[in-house]
């Protein structure tokens, strides 16, 4: 504890403490108090992280390991639980605690008067603790602790307003889809242990670099980690849970389902970068998953009507960008986009929350419009955020998104012309992003008012406890990009800082400066096209050109987009319809067999239930017969092998 950096290890402890206080005694505390306790716990964590950051800033080797306690020593398996605070994790910690603090403060206003006030803050604090453990972990095992922790808390917070059945369903969906990712994580963990004999991340990374480039074991590990990451970060094909997760309170969506938890997958890949850098097949898969997710999610976002669902799909799309970044080997860029995204995405959600709060729970953008006039701060900050996420020049999103585009254009990790295709996809996605974000902005904040009369009366700007965090986030949405200016022409502080923690050898083509400028020009053009189109359709023509989108091919496309690109329907058909039910897997079993089946009686639940009923019939004699059959099969096997031998 001599090193001041190690004090940052207290951050998760403080958050846990806050959670315990709120969870155990919360009901006896008066309203703002649980919120204040929660905010103080997280705020203190932020201060500690910030101090650690400053302390690390001057060091040549910005990495401090801290062993907590020896966990297990089992034969060849030996593990100590510890934190590692280096340039990568300290950035994550600052974002988690910093954005977390703002969202805590905002929540004091947002959750005002809710009967579960203290329960809410207990959950939020627990989430911060778990997330900090995830990013600070020095071993895959401890990381898995945080990984599961954030999953469980997210599950509890999505279902926070459990009286509405929809929320409980959404919580369960999120939970089950994430389980599939967990299978990947667990399998990867055991494979890592089997291959490297350790679970310590630093040791694994070091060992991975000395392994054969592209070896099968490495690729398998990397692909399993990717499966884990797709589950947590809502990437194809496991993206279905995130839009439904918006059923939770909006600040929860902002914190967990936009700014922090969903980026855990990106963080995992960046942490285990050498594993991916050494297996190009896995890395290419990451990039392709990211690119496809980015464009499909953007496509779906074009037609959504729920103010939060649009943002949810945009989150998925932005996460796709990050996946491309870490897939092509530009690990620092992935973190950079996470960094800028945390601000503007949290800001978008909080403004949406502010709107929902003001309208008394309305979420359909067709029933909004013109809100910017009466909600000046919310509207103004929302505009900044929309510009930033679209990648408008000189705002934070511009720099990080451009870095991703240029990295995917220049990467040598992906064989053939794949990286150019990915670049093209991302460029197209950028056009769509600008379009749907401004569709969102115009439908909500500009244009004519389409509100009910009752709602109109209630309309008000949110209290300052909610607007101040918006302003702070807006400020960072503007400036956060300047730590990572394009390397070819400007000083870039972030890349060398992060690369001290991520030692993965990936080569990039160095192109002529003119080409680089051209690339930047192209991205600016993409933004301009998307923005202009949205301006024309939604501002000048007031959505009139969309009338055509109801029939023919365009109509089908529109419906396809509205249905979430068909994934929910697809999964329902494949997994859930009782005909194929038994083959289906957990999602199916849980939803159909348990809930519907039990109500309808066991006979009608499909094959599994019927089989079970037949087998577990209650008749002693059948049980005895089954036992006998078991022994008989073994004995016959023995006789056969015996005769053979």
């Amino acid at each position: 504890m001599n090193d001041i950096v190690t004090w940052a290890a207290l951050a998760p402890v403080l958050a846990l403490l806050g959670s315990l206080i709120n969870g155990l005694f919360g009901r006896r505390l008066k309203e703002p108090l649980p919120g204040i306790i929660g905010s103080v716990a997280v705020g203190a964590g932020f201060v500690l992280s910030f101090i650690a950051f400053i302390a690390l800033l001057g060091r040549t080797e910005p990495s401090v390991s801290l062993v907590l306690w020896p966990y297990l020593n089992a034969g060849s398996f030996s593990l100590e639980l510890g934190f590692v605070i280096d340039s990568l994790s300290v950035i994550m910690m600052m974002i988690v605690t910093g954005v977390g603090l703002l969202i805590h403060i905002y929540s004091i206003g947002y959750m005002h008067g809710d009967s579960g006030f203290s329960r809410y803050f207990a959950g939020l604090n627990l989430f911060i603790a778990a997330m900090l453990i995830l990013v600070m972990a020095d071993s895959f095992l401890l990381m898995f602790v945080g990984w599961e922790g954030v999953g469980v808390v997210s599950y509890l917070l999505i279902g926070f307003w459990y009286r509405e059945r929809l929320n409980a369903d959404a919580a369960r969906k999120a939970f089950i889809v994430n389980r599939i990712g967990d299978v990947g994580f667990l399998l990867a963990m055991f494979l890592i242990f089997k291959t490297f004999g350790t679970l310590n991340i630093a040791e694994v990374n070091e060992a991975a670099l000395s392994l054969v480039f592209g070896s099968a074991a490495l690729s398998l590990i990397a692909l399993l980690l990717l499966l884990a990451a797709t589950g947590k970060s809502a990437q194809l094909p496991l993206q279905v849970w995130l839009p439904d997760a918006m059923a939770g309170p909006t600040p929860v969506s902002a914190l967990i389902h936009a700014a922090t938890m969903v980026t855990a997958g990106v963080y995992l890949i960046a942490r285990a970068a050498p594993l991916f850098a050494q297996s190009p097949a896995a890395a290419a898969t990451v990039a392709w998953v990211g690119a496809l997710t980015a464009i499909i999610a953007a496509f779906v976002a074009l037609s959504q009507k729920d103010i939060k669902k649009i943002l949810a799909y945009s989150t998925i799309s932005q996460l796709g960008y990050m996946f491309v970044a870490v897939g092509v080997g530009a690990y620092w860029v992935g973190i950079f986009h996470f960094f800028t995204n945390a601000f503007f995405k949290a800001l978008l959600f909080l403004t949406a929350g502010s709107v929902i709060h003001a309208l008394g729970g309305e979420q359909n953008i067709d029933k909004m419009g013109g809100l910017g006039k009466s909600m000046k701060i919310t509207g103004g900050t929302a505009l900044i955020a929309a510009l930033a996420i679209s990648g408008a020049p000189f705002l934070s999103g511009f720099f990080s998104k451009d870095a991703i585009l240029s990295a995917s254009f220049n990467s040598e990790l992906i064989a053939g012309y794949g990286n150019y295709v990915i670049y093209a996809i991302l460029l197209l996605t950028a056009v769509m992003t600008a379009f749907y974000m401004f569709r969102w902005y115009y439908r909500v904040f500009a244009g004519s008012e389409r509100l009910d009369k009752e709602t109109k009366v209630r309309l008000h700007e949110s209290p300052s406890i909610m607007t101040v965090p918006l302003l702070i986030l807006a400020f960072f949405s503007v400036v956060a990009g300047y730590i990572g200016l394009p390397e070819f022409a400007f000083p870039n502080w972030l890349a060398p800082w992060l690369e001290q923690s991520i030692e993965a050898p990936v080569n990039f083509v160095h192109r002529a400066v003119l080409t680089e400028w051209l690339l930047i020009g192209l991205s600016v053009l993409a933004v301009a096209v998307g923005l202009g189109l949205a301006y024309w359709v939604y501002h000048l023509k007031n959505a009139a050109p969309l009338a055509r989108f109801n029939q023919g091919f365009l109509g089908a496309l529109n419906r396809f987009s509205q249905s979430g690109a068909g994934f929910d329907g697809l999964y329902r058909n494949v997994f859930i319809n009782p005909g194929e039910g038994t083959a289906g897997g957990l999602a199916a079993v849980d939803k159909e067999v348990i809930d519907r089946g039990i109500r309808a009686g066991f006979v009608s639940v499909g094959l599994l239930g019927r089989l079970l009923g037949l087998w577990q019939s209650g008749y002693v004699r059948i049980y005895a017969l089954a036992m006998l059959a078991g022994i008989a099969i073994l004995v016959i096997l023995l006789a056969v092998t015996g005769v053979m031998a």
Partner: protein
Amino acid sequence: MPLVLPDIDWLTLAPLLVLLSTASLAALYALYNRSSKAVALLALLGLAVAAIFNLQLFVASRAGELRSSFGLRYLADQGALAFNFVILLGAALAILISYDYLKRAELEQPEYYPLMLLSASGAMVMAAAGDLIILLLGLEIMSLAVYVLSAWRQQARESAEAGMKYFLLGAFASAFLIYGIALIYGATGFFSYPQIVAGLLAEGFEQIFLATLGGIMILAGLGFKVALVPFHQWAPDVYTGAPTPVTAFMSVVVKTAAFAALLRIFAFIYPELGVLAVQSLVVLIALTLIVGNFTALVQRGIKRMLAYSAVAHAGYLALAVLAAGNLGMRAAIWYLTAYTLMNAGAFAVLTLLSDRNDHGDDLERFAGLARSRPYLAAAMTVFLLSLAGIPLLAGFVGKILVFSAAIEAGYVSLTVIAIITSVVAMVYYLRPVMYMYFREPEYEPLQTNSRSTHIAIGIAVFGTVLLGIFPGWWYSLLDLGQSLLAGL
């Protein structure tokens, strides 16, 4: 002919003798004083004294002192002693739960406690056995008492049925076990493990076939006790019908003892048998993992769900058996410690929710429990999450240990099945949690005086969390686990 006296190390027998004499004393005391409180306290005292003797032996064995009695027929090595701790813990928790339960259900015949102690002593005999006959007798002592305890609610048809079913199938399984022992005896001419192994390895031994057949039948007999598929079907029915504290006892102590016995013979005898003896266990484990977890998914009643979960956990534990040797043994002991705490805890919570006829263990009872009984709900959540294997709880560490032991032993594909099914398992463990936290209460929870159950739940929560966060100390205590038979 002069009679040669057998070697008897009385200290090795002390824990067993303490339990037996406490049981006898309690049974006698019960004849003229029908107060169950005194008998229950006496039983707990007996368990505590036995634990003290066991501790003394444990310390001695850690110092490298390997003790045994009757020419390696009754062993007191680290493995046996660690299993004894688990058995004593399980029995103590079960007795604590029983006391309130029996009072509430008006079943306070004091013979209950001596029977439980006798059953626990049978379990200890199984863990210490170095001879197939001793193993068989221990198993019978343990089983007979549990058959009776399952039928303890004499006025309830479910309970009577559970006892009868368990008995019939148990006797059937015992017959196979005895047959297996007879065949091994026929092949080698001996009953004690070292002699059997010596016989199997002897020059010119040609009865490997008979011996393997015997091995398979013993596996089936013990597989029945631990509920491996397809010998598991009694478990859900009996677990549901038996009084809940007895279910807790069964799922914890009986399983521990059967695994202790299985581990020992699997480590020493089975490697010398035909390949098929080991391969059969692989098949049984795969079946158990899949059937146990997937049938648990469709259960409505919590007790029944826990029954199938017990089947599934038998699969994980058997994985450690397969990984025989020191690592597997340690993993199994560790897992059983964790399992004892969390499973007994879950059943303890269940006794507080069901009515005095043991009805009402369905999910609806759990609805809104977080509101009506927040601490109980929190405890149950801890147990369920631990059973599901959520990190930093005891169950997670147990799984990690078992899986890594199995991987080390080369059973990778089986471990993959285990990992995937363990993720499936989370779905059914989390369902009651969802009901507790995301539903409005539908029942008024019973308000009963249940101090001893609360003590049991407290111990279980404390243990589950402690072992989950600091697993190292207990694991390192098992470190010197040199078996007495290892050198043979």
